[in-house]
């Protein structure tokens, strides 16, 4: 409870400073909308913001889903087949160095205007943290435990299913936490490259139309979305990995 309190206090201080800076005479309110103006926009444009939020949320969730399946799947394949890991690891790292902003318009060309390119971009940025973490998790198993499984004459599949996969589960959640936060950024980039709906597009449009408070309102909702996803992953981890729960004071 105290942790929540301190986070709340820090947020309040931040909002106050934000309001103070925005109120300084000479600060252009086209550049910086104050918290109050943002709040006003959140109320007035509520319907618009919410309907666009659902679009972005769908992109984020589906993209994350694809990344989990593809990421965990390739991590397992790379773990089971060493030459594949050696061959694919540099590519995996390289995939992360590609500037998504540059790639996004190409995806739009390739997949057309619909949800396709957004999913591709979200999945692409989320793929890396998930794959790398699951791979680390699969390799984290105590060598002594693998020796024990060998002496029990466990098959490769049995060792994977009974020992390595459960051991990798906390790592999957670590990867998911990182992925959840970057996934929202991915969806925004995807929408910037070409979209007719979604929060990212709304923010871009607001910029062009000098609707600064609406831009800020969109950013606030995007941030809340990332926070909510993060919290959801943490909650899911508590349910799925009860043996790994860290004691919190």
């Amino acid at each position, binding site marked *: 409870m105290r942790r929540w309190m301190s986070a709340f206090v820090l947020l309040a201080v931040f909002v106050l400073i934000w309001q103070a800076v925005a109120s300084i005479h000479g600060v252009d309110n086209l550049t910086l909308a104050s918290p109050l103006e943002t709040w006003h926009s959140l109320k007035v444009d509520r319907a618009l913001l919410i309907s666009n939020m659902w679009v972005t949320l769908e992109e984020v969730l589906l993209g994350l889903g694809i990344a989990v399946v593809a990421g965990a799947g390739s991590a397992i394949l790379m773990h089971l087949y060493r030459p594949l890991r050696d061959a694919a690891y540099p590519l995996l790292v390289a995939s992360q160095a590609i500037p998504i902003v540059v790639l996004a318009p190409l995806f739009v060309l390739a997949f057309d205007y619909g949800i396709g390119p957004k999913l591709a971009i979200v999945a692409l940025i989320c793929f890396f943290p998930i794959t790398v973490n699951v791979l680390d998790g699969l390799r984290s198993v105590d060598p002594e435990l693998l020796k024990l499984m060998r*002496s029990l004459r466990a098959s490769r599949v*049995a060792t994977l299913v*009974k020992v390595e996969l459960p051991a990798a589960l906390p790592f999957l959640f670590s990867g998911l936490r990182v992925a959840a936060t970057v996934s929202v950024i991915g969806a925004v980039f995807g929408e910037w490259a070409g979209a007719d709906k979604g929060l990212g597009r709304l923010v871009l449009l607001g910029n062009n139309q000098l609707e600064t408070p609406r831009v800020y309102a969109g950013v606030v909702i995007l941030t809340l979305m990332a926070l909510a996803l993060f919290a959801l992953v943490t909650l899911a981890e508590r349910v799925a990995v009860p043996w790994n729960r860290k004691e919190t004071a």
Partner: protein
Amino acid sequence: MQTRIEAPAQEPLSLAKTAVTVAGLRRAYRTRRGVLPALEGVDLQIREREVLAVVGPSGCGKSTLLELIAGLQEPDGGSVTAAGAHEAKQRLDVCAYMPQRDLLLPWRDALANAALALECRRGVSKAEARRQAAPLFERFGLAEFERSYPNELSGGMRQRVAFLRTLLAGRPVLLLDEPFASLDSITRGQMQEWLAEALASEPRTVVLVTHDTEEALFLADRVAVLSPRPGRVVEELNVPFARPRNRRDTVTDPVFAGLKQRALEALEG
């Protein structure tokens, strides 16, 4: 209900009086500083249902010896035969290996952890494995801990579960690698008595590795003392007391004291 865990039928087991034979066993490890010999010509014979304790200073290759018998490693020279199996792969089928740490899976309760050994046999489902493991928990006084998770169990309890897992593998030869090394001395004493009882009701051929001479003499029919690295057998002692033993009667017996003296002398070289 008395449930015996069936050991896989092994033709040579019923014929051979000697369950495990180790002859001229050599094993060296390649390290950055060169070749490090761990075992240099170890000879041992273990009779069926005999408990042999191997004591030696740390780093004398005791664990290596167990892994070689278990079939987890191949020797550089010499031979190992366990229950008629010569090849490492076949030895894996007749030996159950209990590592130093309990290595219980934190996401499985005690019963499921022990049942893991059964699940690894082809065609035994999780539920079936639990069903088969339950009577053993009953018999060894662990019934109330069946559903406890490893983090809820004491060190001694965890070792008991790990031992049941070893037993459930259903192999004629048990290889125990310092099973009580991590326990405090009181728990360790209780565990020794528990193990002695368990082995009396589930007789197996046992090789027990330990660095504690008293533990070795209390639990084993015979004690082999290894020299510092590279390990060789420098002394073999017969312990002329029937198992399971009463600790106070055994430990205070002059014969026991004499054996301990000899073992310690052998250890000091």
